[in-house]
């Protein structure tokens, strides 16, 4: 397996495998002994409450942070990613929650940032064509690619960031809250896009707070709680199971609220003749 790192990914191959990943920020353990697998052609959803360590995990996989301990295997080979460009070269593309776009550059420049065509004499025409092709594949609604990113809406910026992640033909895509800033139609577009990315045989690791979106696209749902693995679920797991895994208790704010509402409904039905 270790000899084919540059070749095409075979279906169902284990692309990304984390074992015992821990990350400490000073006295705080953001992640403790995390295990995680992503196969080719699979969408893994990473869910958890605020502060569960989801974004930290994504940043480790993107090469932004380095793990304190533990190993990362990419396509059967143990790898280290000292900086973001190392992750990009391996074939791990990331769409960050804050998108990491340069507002003073236009859409084309942002998509090609760091990997411009023809470094000594930028090939603007070829880059613009490729940018339009990528954006049209995503059915993006970007009015013009020669406008600075500062003039785009949140959803448009999200699309630009996703288009950028697809530029280098990655093997794995990490999406940190890809639908948080999007409207109804664009959320559907992004979910379609995730389906299309999976069909192309890529592994997708997606963070989301939106259980509906997670259920709609994920093949497996991995729950983190307080920086630890807290169960793996099938997408048809009940909402209650997921919520109790996320919050760590059967009796939690969500279930209490549901019960209150149920009680209130029952009461109002009783009062009605």
């Amino acid at each position: 397996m270790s000899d084919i790192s540059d070749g095409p990914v075979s279906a169902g191959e284990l692309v990304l495998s984390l074992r015992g990943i821990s990350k400490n920020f000073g006295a705080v353990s953001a992640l403790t002994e995390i295990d995680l697998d992503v196969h080719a052609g699979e969408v893994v959803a990473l869910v958890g409450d605020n502060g569960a360590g989801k974004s930290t995990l994504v940043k480790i996989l993107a090469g932004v942070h380095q793990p304190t301990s533990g190993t990362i295997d990419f396509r059967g080979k143990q790898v280290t990613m000292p900086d973001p460009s190392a992750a990009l070269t391996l074939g791990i593309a990331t769409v960050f929650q804050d998108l990491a776009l340069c507002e003073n550059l236009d859409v084309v420049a942002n998509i090609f940032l760091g990997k411009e065509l023809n470094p000594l004499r930028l090939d603007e025409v070829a880059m613009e064509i490729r940018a339009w092709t990528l954006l049209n594949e995503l059915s993006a609604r970007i009015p013009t690619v020669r406008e600075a990113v500062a003039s785009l809406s949140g959803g448009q910026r999200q699309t630009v960031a996703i288009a950028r992640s697809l530029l280098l033909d990655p093997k794995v895509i990490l999406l940190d809250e890809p639908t948080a800033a999007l409207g109804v139609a664009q959320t559907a577009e992004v979910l379609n896009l995730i389906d299309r990315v999976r069909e192309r045989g890529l592994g997708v690791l997606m963070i989301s707070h939106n259980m509906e979106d997670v259920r709609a696209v994920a093949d497996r749902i991995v729950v983190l709680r307080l920086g630890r693995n807290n169960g793996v679920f099938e997408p048809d797991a009940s909402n209650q199971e997921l919520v109790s895994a996320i919050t760590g208790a059967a009796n939690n704010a969500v279930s209490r609220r549901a019960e209150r509402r149920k009680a209130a409904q029952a009461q109002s039905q009783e009062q009605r003749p």
Partner: protein
Amino acid sequence: MSAEPKQDTSSSTALDRSDVRVKHQAGVGGAISAFFDRVRSGDLGSLPVIVGLVIIWSVFTALNPVFVSSSNLVNLLFDCSTVGVIALGIVCVLMVGEIDLSVGSISGFASAMVGTLWVNQGWPVALAILAALAVGGFIGALYALLFNRLGMPSFVSTLAGLLAVLGLQLYILGSTGSINLPYGSHLVNFGQLLVMPDWLSYALAAVPGIVMLITGLRTVSRRRAVNLSAPSVGGLIVRVAALTILLELIVGYLNQARGIPWMFGLFVGLVVAMNYALTRTQWGRSMTAVGGNREAARRAGIKVRSIYLSAFVMCSMFAALGGVLSAARLASASQQAGTGDVNLNAIAAAVIGGTSLFGGRGSAYSALLGIIVIQSIASGLTLLDLSSSLRYMITGAVLAIAVIVDSLARRSRVSHGRA
């Protein structure tokens, strides 16, 4: 359906013109109205500095007609070139959102090095200049090291450098205090006398137009071939004609006196090269990205530390080159070289020319335009026989206005959704 725009119904809609919400300007009229739209939203470019230059020149000409005489303007160009080269380096560091306060000291040190090595030690002049440039680059690399590895703000490290390098300059000049460069040597002739032959200056003035026409036509045909919208050929020809006529008129006027100084030619050549590097290469794109959003640039895989290193090294090397040129201009390397207002003039020139202090916005041409503004003020006040006290006050006021315009334009850009 008849109310729909024509673009929408035509089958040959360009790839980038398929969105009906965007207004697209076509032709010469379209280019003009797009320009006014840009200005109104705060994307001013070099407009404020050109307006300012017109005002300054009108005032000084009204007060003393000698100001616009061709011989005075030729002198102006000689004076521009030295500090202008330093300002070009400042543009580099401002692009990445940093500052170098020690360019004046570095230029003085470089001129002292050339004086000592060439005149006192008898080195070949070219070798002495190369040594000065190398030492300049080394100082820049040191700033980058302090910035990248120790997180020392460039404001502080270069402030320390200002004092330390000034000390070095005084040390190597020793007790004599100043070294005269021999009159008649190539270096001094270059700084004081050498001008281009008329035919060459006319030919060079036509080059920008020709290059613009060729690259413009090539871009248009390439874009049409791949179904992208292309700017109109008519607008391109109008711009090329206007530029060429303007440049030829300026050259013709200056040729009535001595002509275009070679030193100014070197300066403009550096500006053009720098402009190409900043706008048309991957390095320049990375510089702009680092100045706009450092973390985003890092996550895109740009080696941010090397970009900072290149910016600081280029700034210090340009400063050293500017020092060598000013030694040639003054035919001496003295303790006063690079002190006083050199530092501030260089920084002011870059900012007045339109390079933002906030990083990520700027152009090499801002060094050229800015230094012409500053030298015009200096030259005009000298002609009026006014003391340097007034010169400082007026230059200070112009700098303040330039920064105010920059801040206001920035605010307007934010509210109009431009970076």
